[in-house]
């Protein structure tokens, strides 16, 4: 099946936050109490009740002020760190069209996945189960647009066939973030500045320790265990045990092995 993706053109975003509200409505997520931190950004981060968030970059430029907005959410990575570390098969999974969904019934509440995610996305609800943007798989499978995309009045958020979206953006002369990273992200950004201005990693990758843990330690561990059992068995039938009965009668406390 062809990969589906979001295209988020941050240069069009007016921070109206219809996306935040539409997501809450579709997913029946409650509103949360927040505090005034002296910024229009609200809430300041993804929460268990907030699957997408408009992050405000507020740069003081003397008399002037620069405002950048970015819709943060799960990036629906092809090479997804969260899927890699999840111990419970099926709790996090790729749909045939390349979106990353989750199944709370299979989630064992281990909280590993946030550590595997290069974008610090998964959050845990009051039952300690995973929550994050699931790309409205339920809607997409029924031919509808994701709720946030549907609600976006400025076409900042677009959703559709990944290749078509990429071709369209390139034809319009836009530079894309995430086209090839991690096997290609399912969320492509058009940015107005460098990625780190938006708190995005320049070259997103599976964290090194996580790679080493799952791709080196795990296979070597399984191999090492059976290898050790094999060597012990081989030793027994070749060299054999050190049997005491084999010792000649020796009354002196010398000798030894």
């Amino acid at each position, binding site marked *: 099946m062809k990969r589906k993706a979001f295209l988020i053109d941050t240069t069009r975003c007016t921070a109206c936050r219809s996306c935040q509200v539409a997501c809450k409505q579709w997913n029946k997520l409650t509103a949360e109490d927040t505090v005034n931190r002296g910024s229009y950004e609200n809430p300041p981060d993804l929460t268990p009740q907030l699957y997408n968030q408009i992050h405000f970059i507020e740069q003081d430029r003397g008399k002037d002020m620069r405002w950048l907005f970015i819709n943060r959410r799960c990036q629906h990575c092809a090479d997804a760190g969260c899927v890699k570390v999840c111990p419970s098969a099926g709790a996090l999974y790729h749909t045939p069209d390349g979106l990353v969904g989750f199944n709370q019934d299979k989630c064992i509440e281990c909280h590993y996945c946030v550590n595997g995610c290069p974008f610090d996305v998964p959050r845990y609800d009051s039952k300690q189960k995973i929550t994050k943007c699931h790309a409205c798989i339920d809607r997409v499978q029924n031919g509808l647009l994701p709720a946030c995309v549907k609600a976006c009045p400025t076409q900042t958020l677009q959703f559709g066939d990944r290749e078509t979206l990429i071709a369209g953006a390139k034809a319009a002369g836009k530079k894309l973030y995430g086209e090839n990273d991690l096997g290609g992200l399912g969320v492509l950004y058009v940015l107005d500045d460098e990625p780190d201005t938006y708190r995005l990693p320049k070259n997103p990758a599976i964290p090194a320790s996580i790679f080493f843990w799952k791709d080196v330690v*795990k296979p070597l561990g399984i191999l090492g265990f059976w290898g050790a059992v094999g060597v012990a068995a081989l030793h027994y039938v070749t*060299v054999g045990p050190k049997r*005491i009965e084999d010792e000649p009668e020796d009354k002196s406390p*010398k000798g030894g092995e």
Partner: protein
Amino acid sequence: MTQYVERFNALDRVLHWIVAITFFLLLLSGIGLFAHTFFGYFRLFGGPHQGIMVHKWAGIVFFISSVLLFLRHLGETWRFDADDRRWIVKAGGYLSRKKQGIPQGKFNAGQKLFGLFAGLATIVMGLTGYIIWDPTAFTRELTQFSLMLHGAFFTLFMIAMVVHVYLATMGNPGTLEGMLWGHVTKAWAKKHASKWYAKMVKS
């Protein structure tokens, strides 16, 4: 005259078996998180929640008892003499049937190395286990690194344990008795730990 010498007193033995039992509980309750193939092991405990709970409690008991066991034997295990170095070079004579008459103390050089490794590994497993107790409590980098180290030392510990169990049972008949009820035969002591035996005979 008795045919036996005392090798481990009751405290040594109880401590050792607490460490051994909790180790296997930790192995069985942790392995379900290590790879999808082993996820089914959680059924032994009634599910992943119960498994992780057992792992955490067993971890506390294991850590304390294993550190105590390590400290009890440290007097023997930390010193390596010329005989020990020869033993290591010859791999303890385990590579051939030819007899290698290298006199050894209470523990041979291999056992000393295992004892030191087990102490180190216990501390690493305990520290990293504490950090991943709640994987959202510490910084991401520290948690990621700890998950990796816990898995890496799990692997090393398992391999060392396979060797330890083999050599303590099938590989060296008569050894297990010392840890089961405290005594080994004099013939065993002469063969495996002659310097220690000489000291025991004197006292």
